[in-house]
């Protein structure tokens, strides 16, 4: 009888040890060396958070702050000078908007691409599957693959992409994503900051709480900038009831918008603000 009690106690103690570990594994959690449970769960629908700061901005501005932009190379400066954005930059160059003359690549139905689309107001969904973290963006209705199966970035990418080629790894509660293999067709942001095919992007994804995601990026593009450009963490809110909608860019829709809205407005305004 006494031995029986000991056996029951032993089994219960063993179960108490194993159950949390099993639960952690089934819910995407892992254990660090300190035995504290660290979540590896970014899944859900997210949208960039509206800011409440003064001066008020509609959304958290800038994965990389134009006020802290490193000096550009001659190549980068030429690309920047040729860009006519649709939004006034908080950077020292100020307002470069010329109504009706905007040449943001998205106006020609190019995708926003990584990392620019991360500051689009449209939501995106993160879905974790074995070996990959997937990002599904409403804008452009596009998927991004982040390989988490241990593979390395290609040293010499066979093709250059709008979203680049991405691999990710967990460090504690942070998913670190590194990307290369970008083409040079897109902007880094809505202000016309350029990037080249030498862009090496590092992103840090951290779920601060159930409803808050943080993303911080570092731009390393020696063809466009003389130094790495380090961004501050930007917050995103969980949107659990939101379904990702379908937003494809079509020439028909863009042309109609330009014909009815952009060009008449430009003709009426006539001058840069």
């Amino acid at each position, binding site marked *: 009888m006494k031995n029986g009690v000991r056996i029951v106690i032993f089994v219960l103690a063993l179960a108490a040890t194993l159950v949390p570990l099993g639960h952690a594994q089934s819910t995407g959690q892992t254990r660090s060396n300190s035995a504290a449970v660290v979540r590896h769960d970014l899944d859900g629908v997210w949208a960039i958070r509206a*800011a409440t700061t003064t001066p008020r901005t509609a959304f958290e501005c800038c994965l990389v702050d134009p006020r802290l932009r490193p000096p550009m190379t001659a190549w980068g400066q030429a690309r920047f000078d040729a860009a006519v954005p649709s939004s006034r930059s*908080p950077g020292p160059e100020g307002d470069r908007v010329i109504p009706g003359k905007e040449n943001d690549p998205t106006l020609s139905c190019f995708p926003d691409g990584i990392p620019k689309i991360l500051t689009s107001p*449209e939501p995106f969904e993160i879905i974790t599957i074995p070996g990959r973290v997937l990002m599904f963006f409403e804008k452009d209705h596009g998927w991004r693959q982040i390989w988490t199966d241990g593979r390395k970035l290609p040293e010499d990418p066979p093709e250059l992409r709008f979203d680049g080629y991405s691999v990710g790894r967990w460090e504690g509660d942070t998913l670190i994503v590194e990307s290369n293999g970008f083409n040079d067709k897109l902007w880094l942001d809505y202000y016309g900051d350029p990037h080249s095919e030498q862009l090496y992007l590092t992103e840090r994804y951290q779920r601060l709480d159930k409803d808050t995601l943080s993303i911080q990026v570092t731009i390393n593009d020696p063809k466009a900038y003389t130094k790495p450009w380090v961004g501050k963490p930007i917050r995103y809110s969980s949107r659990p009831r939101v379904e990702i909608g379908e937003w494809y860019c079509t020439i028909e*829709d863009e042309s109609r918008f330009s014909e009815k809205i952009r060009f008449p407005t430009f003709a009426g305004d006539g001058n840069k603000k």
Partner: protein
Amino acid sequence: MNVRSVTVLLALSACTALSAHHGAAAYDRSITLTLKATVTEFVFKNPHIIISFDAPDDNGKIIHWSAEGGSSTGLARRGWTWKTLKAGDQVTVVGNPARGMEGKEARVMALTRVILPNGQVVGQQTLTSEGREGAPK
């Protein structure tokens, strides 16, 4: 649409939307027009919905307007559908006019909200001058 959903929509109308397609400075936010309108076309598409309508000016002359709204995907989450408006509907349109178009027969505005024939109010993400402008934290 009940009172609560109208309230939600109006609250959401305080939200702002970035437009990569259009400089927000094109609109005069100091002027809010409330126009009795006859819808001529309703395009519930991205990048932004467009309501085309005719409305008389102070002298009774018919002005052809195009009102720019938010994205159709965003507005679909706020209660709009592609059937919310149709040609021939008599509605009240509230919005901010584009600068420098006074005196023209065809004008553009940024939509704030629409009051439907049955009195329902459909709110709108506004493209305010705050937009994405202003300094980051």
